[in-house]
């Protein structure tokens, strides 16, 4: 009797309406989409003041188009980061992916090429996963090592753009429906699949659990190693999709397609911007997409304002740090709000 009574405030306070908790402004996922909207608005104002036009169709097309490649990689990166791992080999895998895609398409069919790229990606992801779980090498080092391995292979075998992508496949990179590039649908499809996997399947539940507390997950019967391996494979498959998209857009494979764009660190930045905890266990694909969009909008604004490319990096760095600093705040604010609520209860009692 007594127990239930004295405890009631503690457990009652956080009890929320089902689902309501998912739409809080303080939730990073919501926050990052709001931030993207806010940045768009600010960009609109600034660019207009500057004498340009921001809210144009071609600009929207550009923003969406520029989100695709990073989006695909970042969505995959979210999967590994959720499980508490990390993939620094994505950049080289993209490069190799575009090369394999373009070369296979040159000699064979598009279907073979797609399968070849996905097979390659799966293999690299599997290797990453096995190194991380089997050899117990920290993911940072393991995937960095994998990046070196891929780099050596690429440099040893390619001397520049190679292969040729047929026009039919290039449509993926260039066609639009209305003002929406069709590759955006590829991104949406991949993101949707990953969202479903992470939120609705056992594997996804296990990914969150493994990232949240690997030991606890293992004790609960989650095959954590297998989960991490799957996450790495999923990530690599997304990277493969990014490589295919880039191949279609570039019309050829390029050995530096992934590295010069710094997809490795950029994708991690996007994931973190999207509110996924670097330690794993919290966050998700939806936020990541918001993060990618935010970066893309920023880029577009810089473009419109002809900002010095070096200065862009400065702003990007500041934005990333500031965003994550903001995410860290709501937790404190929430805790404070809870304290105040409790104090009020106490006041009522006294």
């Amino acid at each position: 009797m007594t127990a239930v009574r004295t405890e009631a405030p503690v457990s009652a306070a956080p009890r929320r309406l089902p689902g309501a908790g998912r739409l809080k402004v303080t939730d990073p996922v919501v926050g990052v989409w709001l931030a993207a909207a806010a940045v768009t608005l600010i960009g609109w104002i600034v660019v207009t003041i500057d004498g340009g036009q921001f809210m144009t169709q071609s600009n929207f097309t550009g923003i969406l188009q520029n989100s695709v490649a990073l989006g695909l990689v970042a969505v995959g990166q979210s999967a590994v980061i959720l499980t508490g791992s990390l993939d620094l080999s994505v950049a080289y895998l993209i490069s190799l992916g575009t090369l394999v895609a373009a070369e296979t398409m040159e000699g064979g069919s598009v279907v073979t090429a797609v399968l070849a790229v996905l097979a390659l990606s799966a293999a690299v992801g599997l290797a990453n996963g096995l190194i991380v779980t089997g050899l117990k090498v920290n993911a940072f080092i393991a995937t960095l090592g994998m990046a070196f391995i891929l780099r050596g292979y690429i440099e040893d075998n390619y001397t520049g753009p190679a292969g040729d992508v047929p026009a039919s496949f290039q449509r993926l990179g260039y066609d639009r429906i209305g003002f929406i590039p069709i590759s955006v649908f590829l991104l949406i499809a991949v993101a949707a699949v990953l969202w479903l996997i992470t939120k609705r399947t056992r594997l996804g539940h296990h990914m969150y659990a493994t990232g949240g507390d690997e030991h606890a997950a293992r004790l609960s019967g989650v095959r954590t190693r297998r989960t991490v391996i799957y996450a790495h494979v999923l990530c690599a498959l997304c990277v493969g999709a990014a490589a295919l998209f880039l191949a279609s857009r570039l019309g050829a494979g390029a050995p530096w397609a992934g590295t010069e764009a710094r997809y490795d660190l950029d994708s991690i930045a996007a994931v973190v911007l999207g509110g996924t905890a670097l330690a794993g266990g919290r966050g998700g694909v939806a936020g990541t997409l918001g993060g990618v969009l935010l970066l893309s909008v920023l880029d577009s604004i810089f473009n419109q304002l002809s900002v010095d490319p070096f200065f862009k990096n400065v702003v990007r760095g500041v934005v990333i740090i500031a965003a994550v600093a903001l995410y860290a705040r709501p937790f404190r604010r929430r805790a404070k709000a809870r304290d105040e609520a409790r104090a009020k209860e106490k006041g009522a009692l006294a």
Partner: protein
Amino acid sequence: MLTMQDVSKSFLGVRVLHGVSLDLEPGEVHALVGENGAGKSTLMKVLAGEYAPDEGTITLDGTVHAFSHPVQAQAAGIGLIHQEFALLPHRTVAENVFLGREPVRRGFVDRRAMERRTAELLAELDETGITPRTLVKDLSVARQQTVEIVKALAASDVRVLVMDEPTAPLADHEVELLYALIRRLAARGIGILYISHRLREVFDLSRRITVLKDGRKVATLTTADTTADEVVRAMVGRELGSYYPPRAGPEEIGEPLLTTAGAGNERLAGIDLTLRAGEVTGVAGLQGSGRTSLVRALFGAAPFTRGHMTVTGRALRPASPRQAIRGGIALVTEDRKGEGLALRQSVRDNALLVTRAVHGEGAQAGGVAGLLERVNLRSRGHDQEVQYLSGGNQQKVVIAKWLAAGPRVLLFDEPTRGVDVGAKAAIHTLVRELARDGMAVLIVSSELPELIGMSDRILVMSDGTLAGELPAGAGEEDIMRLATASDATPEGSAA
């Protein structure tokens, strides 16, 4: 129903279990007792498939099992509730309960079924404070434990439920709830293996008691035919004599070392207390009544925001632990591993941490030996990492760490939680000695006998305030009456 036969297990070549045998009948509560490090948890982990035994067999309902993964044990009907919880704080109750065996429909996790079943199980346990969608981090420790139990029940047709010190994080009244739960489970024919350092619980609940010592089974006793003294003797291998050291005489109680007047913060209000040299002051209260908040406030970890406070005669309302430490206050926290120790550092480094951080007198290695001797530490040397020490010895390191700083006021929050009877007695003796040396001591404990046995005076907390003070020797009923005093307030104001 369950038989463990001649189970042996070694870690790093050190034998931890020596051919232990144990059996369990359906509906039986079988207690497992022994000193810290006796091997209780290890034996249970072998049973639950977390460790593979070096030797020995496990037979459940006539089938011999050799589990290589906890899942297999779960599938066979063995559930284990860990000494440390294995819950994911950022996931919902339902997600935690079904972790590792989520129901799947058409390829997707069937959340609705999961939540429905969780709700059913919660209802079966008469647990109304939890909904399946609550995030575990928002639950109290006791409720988290309920989630653990529900998790074990949901696992399968559970035949055997192992509970490793389930009451350690609970307050007395919650223990009652747990008792009721355990009895209901037993009535369903589930065999329960119950580990605890609190003999009273063991006698309240169990039908038989198995005593482990140094990895060997000493005896299996029928509870009805034995006494606490006999069990203790089996555990410790000697008589412990009187449980508690003698209290302080009036002449030993000196001047006030710490006083507060009208102190409060978000969780506390109107705290007026005085801690005197040589005196051991106990603090009682229900879970969530603010005892931990009180010591954390005195220590500056969750500081008072109102009121007045003096330490050794000078006004000091610490805003940080550092200020408190400089003022001569020390706090032994309730969460030894999370807040008390740097587990991967050596005994020496832990013992010197406070001095190094606050006083900057790092190199006094000689002093460490003396301190560790004073707290009677048993370790393989001062370079041993504390993570390899038993709970009691870890607690001694924590105490040594504070003694190194030469405090005048010592605050203990649940100082003997998860500590075996032998080590407990040592800690009690130590606490009393420290008071004799002129320190003011405050003890928070959920174990009323301990509190009554140790305290020269008992303060009772309720809803963040001091509800009253009782003299030495007050009975449990007096304490409970004060602790639950807020019951008298009308329903409306509490809501």
